């Protein structure tokens, strides 16, 4: 019966692993739940949940599962008995092996290994490992209906704690993990000691050489630690149709600035399509701009360039300009895009959403730009592939 709580937690979106579950069982064997439901609630939560954002999810699952008995603080004797002897029977082991893709043998081995790792003695010994014992509640799926046990509520019952859902504010289903984005940017690395850092690392080869030259009298030589020399420039589409992706873009922005540790990092903004000037602020303040040509002339060609935008704009914005012989009209958005492509050999395009399957007016520009640029979707996978591409010339 207890195992079904495990599945309920997993199905409610908590990433409970077998390891944590074993830890929980271990805790129960040691009596850390203090034989009360609120104690049990506290034990479960501190082992299984790892962020205050998940407290609400846990509370809901807990209230759903233990709702019927939770009005009483004392645990019903049957549950108590089970908690004191949390043995796994064969069926439960089988079920566990289905979810975790491990064989029954592997799980048993893991149990045994766990027990041995513990240096302190436990009264439980290895008795509960796969003995085919029998739990008082049968196997699984049953809710604890109809059990009513008296008892005085000492202080707040676990059900009330869980039922209050006071962690609701922290729940945020849309939280994208910026950590993973940051890790993707990590791959953009080109280490070199050719930097202006202070010399802090002992240079062993040079020390030996200098010391020999110095007739064996020690001469210490230091060198600069190797640092990332990758320089980045981001051109970000802001405002208009990009407003829908504001959160995604700010996540990207944060990840780049936090994790990058790039030698240099520049941000410029544009609206829909490149024009003669680039904005310095995402608010698109006309007073804070630089000429696009200035950027092209002054930012060296070894910068890695990432253009972030949905590539959907009116064809006018992209193409209108005085016609020239070779393709892109002079002064048009496309001509500026192509100038960047020409100058910077490491350049990719990130778009926040995949191209709609049907072609519409708005996808025309997407298709045009797709011909010239390596486009990746702004997702973990797309970003990772894009970063790989950024390390090699296009």
């Amino acid at each position: 019966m207890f195992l079904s709580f495990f599945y309920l937690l997993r199905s409610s979106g908590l990433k409970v692993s077998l390891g944590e579950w074993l830890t929980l069982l271990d805790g129960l064997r040691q009596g850390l739940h203090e034989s009360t439901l609120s104690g049990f609630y506290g034990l479960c939560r501190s082992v299984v949940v790892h962020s205050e954002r998940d407290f609400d999810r846990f509370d809901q699952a807990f209230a759903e599962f233990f709702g019927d008995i939770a009005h009483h603080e004392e645990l019903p004797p049957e549950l108590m008995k089970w908690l004191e002897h949390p043995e796994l029977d064969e069926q439960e082991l089988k079920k566990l092996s289905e979810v975790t893709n491990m064989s029954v043998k592997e799980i048993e081995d893991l149990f045994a290994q766990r027990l041995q790792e513990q240096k302190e003695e436990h009264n439980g010994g290895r008795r509960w490992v796969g003995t085919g014992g029998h739990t008082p509640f049968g196997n699984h799926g049953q809710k604890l209906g109809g059990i009513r046990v008296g008892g005085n509520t000492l202080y707040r019952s676990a059900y009330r704690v869980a039922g209050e859902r006071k962690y609701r504010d922290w729940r945020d289903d849309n939280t994208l993990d910026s950590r993973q984005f940051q890790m993707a940017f990590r791959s953009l690395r080109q280490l070199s000691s050719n930097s202006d850092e202070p010399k802090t690392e002992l240079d062993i080869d040079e020390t030996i050489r200098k010391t020999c030259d110095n007739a064996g009298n020690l001469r210490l030589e230091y060198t600069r630690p190797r640092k990332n020399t990758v320089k980045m420039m981001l051109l970000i589409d802001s405002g208009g149709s990009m407003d829908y992706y504001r959160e995604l873009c700010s996540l990207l922005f944060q990840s780049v600035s936090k994790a990058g540790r790039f030698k240099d990092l520049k941000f410029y903004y544009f609206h829909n399509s490149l024009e003669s000037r680039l904005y310095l602020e995402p608010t698109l303040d006309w007073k804070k701009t630089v000429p696009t040509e200035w950027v092209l002339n002054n930012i060296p060609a070894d910068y890695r360039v990432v253009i972030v935008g949905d590539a959907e704009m009116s064809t006018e914005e992209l193409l209108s300009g005085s016609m020239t012989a070779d393709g892109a009209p002079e002064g048009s958005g496309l001509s500026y895009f192509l100038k960047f492509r020409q100058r910077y050999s490491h350049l990719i395009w990130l778009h926040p959403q995949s191209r709609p399957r049907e072609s519409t007016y708005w996808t025309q520009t997407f298709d045009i730009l797709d011909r010239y640029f390596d486009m990746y979707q702004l997702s973990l996978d797309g970003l990772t592939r894009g970063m790989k591409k950024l390390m090699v010339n296009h």
Partner: protein
Amino acid sequence: MTTAEQFRGSSEYVASPELLQAANIAISLQKPLLIKGEPGTGKTVLAQAIASALDKPLLIWNIKSTTKAQDGLYVYDVVQRLYDSQFGNAGVDNISKYVKLGKLGQAFSSEQQVILLIDEIDKADLEFPNDLLWELDRMEFHIPETGETIRANHRPIVIITSNAEKELPDAFLRRCIFHYIEFPDQELMAQIVRVHYPDMDEALLSQVLRAFYWLRGLNGIQKKPSTSEALDWIQALLLNEVEPERVWPEIPYAGVLLKKNQDLDVLHKSSRERA
């Protein structure tokens, strides 16, 4: 509970029952206790309180942005050894003389069980927690220079604090007992204040709490005042012998509670509205 050692809070530290339970779970299950919470809710002080309650030495490893996992294990002082070899000092052959254990290494090799506080782990590099997984799991590490393996004589009680500046890796989180310190409610806060100022006037205390929680509830406050700031504020009030009637609604020495200009402006604005 079978474990002989249990943390019950201490005379200087008032912990919520949930926190006590989490601490005891971590101690019994021999897992690191990961503490998150608003700044100033006493994350760091907890380790000190546990150390003094269990009467064990406390080792503090303060994490900075440049800290590497290796620093916590050991540092091999090559340069000192080279210098010593120049002058033929005794013991140059003995590499272990130049291997200095870091905080984690000290905790492992200590003769008695210690409390190890890894403070503000989120300050370090992204990979930092992952680099410590093996050491925290197995409680041992190898020093290639001396061929020695440092194994924990007594599994230290590890307490880790985080201000949630960075997300921690899943693999690391899975190994921890997690507790989020909530901001204390008025009742708990009153207890905390009484621990620090036992002779405080009840009338003053109730006024202080009223003003303090009103301030925290104000719309538009960017940095809410914390427990430690409340304690500082009370000290300021006591030192200047402020009358209880003046505390609310006047809120003297608000600068102790609010550190940002914008927040002080918000306070003045809403004070005027109330007047």
